[in-house]
């Protein structure tokens, strides 16, 4: 046991001291907190005021265009040349020129500005003109606009998730986002650290230090020490991220205040309703983060242990990284498939595809974690995790048997058949 600990310690320190690790650890929380701050920032989108001079020859629009916080319309009856001059003097941001028009065929409306007006500005003005013309048409046909508006109903479905004893307000899109991000993170970390294991094993084999090592420690212990050592690195990184993110989110309101942005009050439902950014934020806050984090960590651990055993097998079997391709394929394929199918899985998170993919151990780490944001029955999670643990044990057994022979083999081209032969060899 003491020797495994020494290997764990070596692997851990060798990686934690790397510059790349420190940089990743520091940048990670910034990215995470950014995803939290983004909705807030979105809800505070810029409110630049624009003044528009309206030259209306038709007479339909005088004082009819609706002013808003961003747009103010001024109406004057002056020649176009004079208006242009006023605009050049920056008295107005744009000039809206409306000729005499037929309300059944409104053409020839122009907007003049010093620089190309933004799409949202043009769109806003178009909407207002359309609504004025619409009103005119109602009148022309003798219809009452208010009566018509009362006919069209407005329905908004609030999605409520029924938990054991409480109803939580959920947002399908937020679930989707969280699922996708957690699924992707599992994929990314398993891949990233799995390849690190493979490289580590291969380097020991290439540099031939492995022969010295296994004259002091059993190959299986060496492999296990390496896998656990790297796992410790991952968890250090996670913990650092969670801690740093927590600190950052404590300071987020202060930080935002620095930029003149107030942290919105999500406890006020009325305020939430009219603001998309706030709605996302409140849904995020309502999320059962603890369950998700625990699930994430458990399935990451299981998936990581299983995959890294397989990656270690590959590392032990090959002499050069260029030979890795053929053996990497069958390992990375299930991971990639589970990532690609996330879209399909999440569009029906409780359907058969989602169910089976979250049971098969090779795909379950990514898929189950992604599904968990939608609420998965406990028995499914437990079964899936149990299967994952079994697969981990099987993978480690196989890896251990191939590893102890592979690390001593040099120069021979290895095929799947040889791997199987090694696995069955006694010693």
């Amino acid at each position, binding site marked *: 046991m003491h*020797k495994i600990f*020494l290997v764990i310690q*070596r692997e851990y320190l*060798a990686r934690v001291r790397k510059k790349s690790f420190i940089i990743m650890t520091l940048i990670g929380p910034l990215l995470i907190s950014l995803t939290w701050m983004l909705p807030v920032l979105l809800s505070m989108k810029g409110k630049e005021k624009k003044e528009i001079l309206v030259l209306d020859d038709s007479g339909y629009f005088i004082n009819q265009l609706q002013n808003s916080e961003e747009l103010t319309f001024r109406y004057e009856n002056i020649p176009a040349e004079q208006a242009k001059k006023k605009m050049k003097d920056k008295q107005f941001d744009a000039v809206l020129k409306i000729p005499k028009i037929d309300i059944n065929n409104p053409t020839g409306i122009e907007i003049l500005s010093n620089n190309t007006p933004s799409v949202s500005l043009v769109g806003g003005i178009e909407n207002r003109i359309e609504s004025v013309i619409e009103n005119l048409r109602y009148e022309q046909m003798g219809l009452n606009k208010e009566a018509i508006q009362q006919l069209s109903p407005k329905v908004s479905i609030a999605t409520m998730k029924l938990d054991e004893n409480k109803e939580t307000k959920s947002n399908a899109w937020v679930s989707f986002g969280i699922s996708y991000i957690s699924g992707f993170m599992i994929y990314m970390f398993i891949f990233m650290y799995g390849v690190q294991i493979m490289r580590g094993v291969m*380097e*020991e084999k*290439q*540099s*031939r*230090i*492995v*022969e*010295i*090592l*296994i*004259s*002091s*420690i059993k190959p299986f212990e060496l492999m296990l020490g390496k896998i656990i050592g790297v796992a410790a690195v991952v968890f250090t990184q996670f913990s650092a991220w969670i801690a740093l993110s927590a600190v950052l989110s404590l300071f987020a309101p202060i930080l935002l205040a620095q930029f003149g942005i107030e942290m919105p009050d999500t406890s006020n439902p009325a305020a939430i309703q009219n603001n998309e950014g706030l709605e996302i934020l409140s849904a995020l806050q309502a999320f059962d983060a603890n369950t998700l984090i625990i699930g994430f960590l458990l399935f990451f651990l299981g998936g990581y242990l299983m995959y890294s055993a397989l990656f270690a097998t590959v590392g032990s079997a090959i002499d050069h990284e260029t030979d890795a391709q053929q053996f990497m394929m069958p390992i990375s394929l299930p991971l990639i498939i589970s990532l690609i199918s996330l879209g399909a899985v999440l569009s029906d998170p409780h359907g058969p595809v989602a169910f089976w993919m979250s049971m098969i151990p090779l795909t379950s780490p990514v898929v189950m974690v992604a599904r968990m944001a939608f609420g998965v029955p406990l028995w499914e999670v437990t079964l899936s995790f149990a299967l994952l643990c079994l697969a981990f044990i099987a993978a480690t057994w196989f890896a251990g048997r191939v590893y102890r022979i592979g690390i*001593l083999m*040099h120069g021979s081209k290895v095929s799947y058949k040889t791997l199987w*032969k090694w696995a069955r060899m006694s*010693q």
Partner: protein
Amino acid sequence: MIVSASNITKYYGSFRALHDFHVEIPEQSIFGLLGPNGAGKSTFIRILNQIIFSDEGSIHIEGEPLAPKHIARIGYLPEERGLYKKMQVGEQLLFLAQLKGLSKSEASRRIREWLTKFELMPWINKKVEDLSKGMQQKVQFIATVVHQPMLIILDEPFSGFDPVNAELIKDEILQLRSQGATVLFSTHRMESVDEICDHMVMINKSEKVLEGKIDEVKKRFKKNTYQFRFRGECPNDLHIVSEEKAENGYRDLLIKLGEGETVNEFLTRMLPIGDVGGIQEHIPTINSIFIQAVKEDLRITQIQNHHA
């Protein structure tokens, strides 16, 4: 006997790496394990290091069956050298020494001693890849002996060492032996055995062909031949194995004396007929012994095959 191995057989798949191998290694000897590449030397060494296990046979260390606890008492320098390139010298040695069971404080004390001895102290916090090849080899040697093993196994210890380092290592080997260690060293370069080994065993194609004390083996293989420097006509009955011209009209002859003839009798016979420049008994080199032993072994196998 510090190591006694009997009946060791090892197959890799259908390839026979070692067959019915017996060897007894006496304590405080410098024991040469000789044989051409692929003879089975490394296989035996790996079995002794418990890296692989034999299919048949048993090994005893000081009378006890080979067990994991012996790992701490064996130092191993593999043929293919290697260290963690990106790890610091001091940390690396500390890691390897602790793997061999030393406590941290004891390990760092001894590492400092050895690094000082090899003038490597200024490099203790440098990465291995920043060291020269020669320095790396010294570090590797320290890793082999830092835990004061009673059995030091060196696989081709001089390959890759420059002459200066090879000399240094040779001195260290002799010193460690005088402190009580036994050294087993394997090589295909026979001449290095002549220099420092006192015992040896020869393997060829997975089987033992010869073993014993170096002196005794050499005695067994010397064939009453002499290097003889002479100027003059040789009698017709003199058995000359080979001859070369030397300076001043002398010839260097390799001669074989007749059955029962002593050197004195021979010289008495030769002195009147020419000038004797010198005579010395011809002692075969380990290399020629090996070639001869392998040839004889081959002939025996061929005869056996012929009869079979």
